[in-house]
């Protein structure tokens, strides 16, 4: 078990990524009760946006100087697409039966994936992404890559900023009000359309941060990377209690750590040899989800049973 600290760290990094993407699912669901299945693709376009900036910068510029520009570029692409999707695809369907926006989201997801596949230069197979120099750093018995540090740092900063924003700012309180009851919030003078757009924009920004971090960590991005990541992040959001931003981050971390530990330790349990290893990690992640939902149907930090879902 002396690899436990390293495996926990592996899970922590993976989980931070899931958590960052899960924020987008949970915020949008909390406010408009829409599961935005195109969110995984918003994460993907964020990564491609960052890469497009990097390839167009002079090669003499160091990666550290390029990093803020890449973040701005990726965030711009993601936020524009997320807000555009809300304005053009979801808002017209806001009072439609619940299935209509859901199908639209799936269609949008396919369209975005194919758009990148067709029109981004050479995106038909994996694209190489620059990686941060330096590392690995040894902290006790744990090895940490510089890409991991960026990811963890970004996740912590984003999460703190979001927490303060939602709790203390005027807009944040308006968001909470809209989540509780959109009609009453409107009567109280909250511009709910503006709040919804802000929710999509924040989700898009977080997805872009995750996309950039993913590229830096793995050194490769693909046009279809959003599908699996989106599915995992959605699971994380449900696990943590959909609608709750802290729940999304917690759900992501739990999911990431569960996957890492399942890969490493399930095979050591007597009689379970054939159920261990990387191939079964996702199965165990979903077993965990089912168990949690059986005991706490509202998710880990969910405050109320989803009465409108």
């Amino acid at each position, binding site marked *: 078990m002396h690899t436990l600290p390293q495996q926990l760290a592996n899970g922590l990094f993976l989980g931070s990524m899931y958590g960052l993407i899960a924020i987008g699912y949970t915020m949008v669901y909390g406010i408009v009760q829409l599961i935005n299945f195109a969110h995984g693709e918003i994460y993907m376009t964020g990564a491609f946006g960052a890469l497009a900036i990097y390839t167009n910068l002079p090669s003499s510029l160091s990666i550290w100087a390029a990093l803020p520009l890449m973040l701005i570029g990726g965030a711009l692409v993601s936020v524009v697409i997320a807000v555009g999707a809300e304005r053009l695809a979801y808002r017209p369907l806001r009072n439609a039966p619940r299935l209509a926006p859901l199908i639209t989201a799936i269609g949008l997801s396919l369209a975005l994936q194919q758009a990148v596949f067709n029109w981004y230069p050479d995106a038909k197979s994996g694209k190489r992404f620059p990686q941060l120099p330096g*590392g*690995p750093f040894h902290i006790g018995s744990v090895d940490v890559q510089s890409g991991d540090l960026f990811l963890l740092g970004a996740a912590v900063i984003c999460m703190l900023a979001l927490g303060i924003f939602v709790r203390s700012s005027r807009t944040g309180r308006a968001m909470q009000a809209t989540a509780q009851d959109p009609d009453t919030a409107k009567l109280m003078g909250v511009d709910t359309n503006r709040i919804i757009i802000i929710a999509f924009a924040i989700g898009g920004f977080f997805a872009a941060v995750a996309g950039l971090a993913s590229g830096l960590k*793995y050194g490769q991005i693909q046009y279809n990377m959003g599908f699996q990541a989106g599915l995992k992040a959605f699971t994380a959001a449900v696990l943590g209690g959909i609608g709750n931003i802290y729940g999304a981050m917690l759900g992501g971390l739990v999911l990431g750590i569960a996957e890492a530990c399942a890969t490493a330790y399930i095979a050591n349990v007597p009689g379970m040899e054939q159920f261990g290893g990387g191939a079964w990690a996702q199965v165990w992640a979903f077993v965990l989800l089912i168990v949690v939902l059986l005991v706490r149907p509202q998710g880990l930090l969910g405050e109320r049973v989803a009465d409108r879902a």
Partner: protein
Amino acid sequence: MRHRSLLILTSVLATGALTLTACGSRSDDSKKGGSDSSGGSKTTVVIGVDAPLTGANSATGLGIQYGVQIAVDDANAKNLVPGVTFKIKPLDDKAQPATGQTNATALVQEKDVIATVGPLNSGVAQSMQQVFESAKMVEISPSNTNPALTQGKDWATGTKTRPFTTYFRTATTDANQGNFAADYAVNTLKKKSAFVVDDKQTYGAGLAGIFQGKFKELGGQVAGTDHVNTGDTDFSALVTKIKNSHADMVYYGGQYDESELVTKQLKAAGVHIPLMGGDGMYSDTYIKTAGQAAEGDLATSVGVPVETLPAAKTFIDTYKSKGYPGDYGTYGGYSYDAATAIIKAVKTVMDANGGKLPSDARAKLVDAVQKTDFDGIAGHVAFDQYGDTTNKQLTVYQVKGGKWTAVKTGVYNG
């Protein structure tokens, strides 16, 4: 009213998405189709190509497509079969068995298609074999290496039965490749303890199993095993396991798409042991993606290095001068030879029928291909009673100075 317009919007979006999907796989292929037939009275014979042309494995898949393209262009230029213009019809299987089967059905239904070169993946081949068998249509794979495809599922116990008479391949099997790799690891590299990983696919799991068996038989120890999913990108948990197992090498059964990330993450975590794999990861893309981390890694591949073959020089020059995408190094030469085997068989069939293509040309072609016997650009081309190539050459490559360098070429015996 409002709802109706929204429904229309949704369906337009969905249709748009579907149309885009449909275009995606073909957009590139049609541009670089066969050369136009200029002679008006000539018969057009089409050779189907099935390989992953986009996404995972596409670097080596495109090598197959353009390998066949060059063979067909050469045959047309030299007028190898008088009165016939050859064309290719490339289909993208995305390395997915289900797509491969759809493509096989499409090729069979097109009456101009006489035979097919492909697919790249053994798992995809499994889903296509029956379709071609029912249609009596020849399929020659330049790259499938799983032994069961030609020798039946009980090949390991010595009872070999050929399941499909229309299936041939120019690559030798993993029974040879896995053993050759284990032999090199134990006897040349002096490795004692291997961590074996595979991707659960027909090819990867089969190859890793054969390597593991032989490695143990030769006195090596298996420090651990694990499986990954194709499409995974995070292997940190696996890397920690490998590190902790104190293995002195990693064997990976699978494709370059995952192994390049495994080796990268392995070396980044400070585990400087070589990763060895099969023909699925012998691709320039592996080195490009893994960069410095690839240094010292090994791969076995089928055949002798195509660069060392004098006959292949023109082929490589043509490939480069036309600026075709993909890696010709892995299967390009074998694809050229597979297509040439079909072209020669077409000639045999036509000669026997007074210079005309018979109405049951596909079925007659099966016999003609079985009797194939010529010197191709990648070695001698002939098939044994199972449809396997008689050319059992294998090569071990190692990444040295950012390039795959051949370190041992030979035949595995016993």
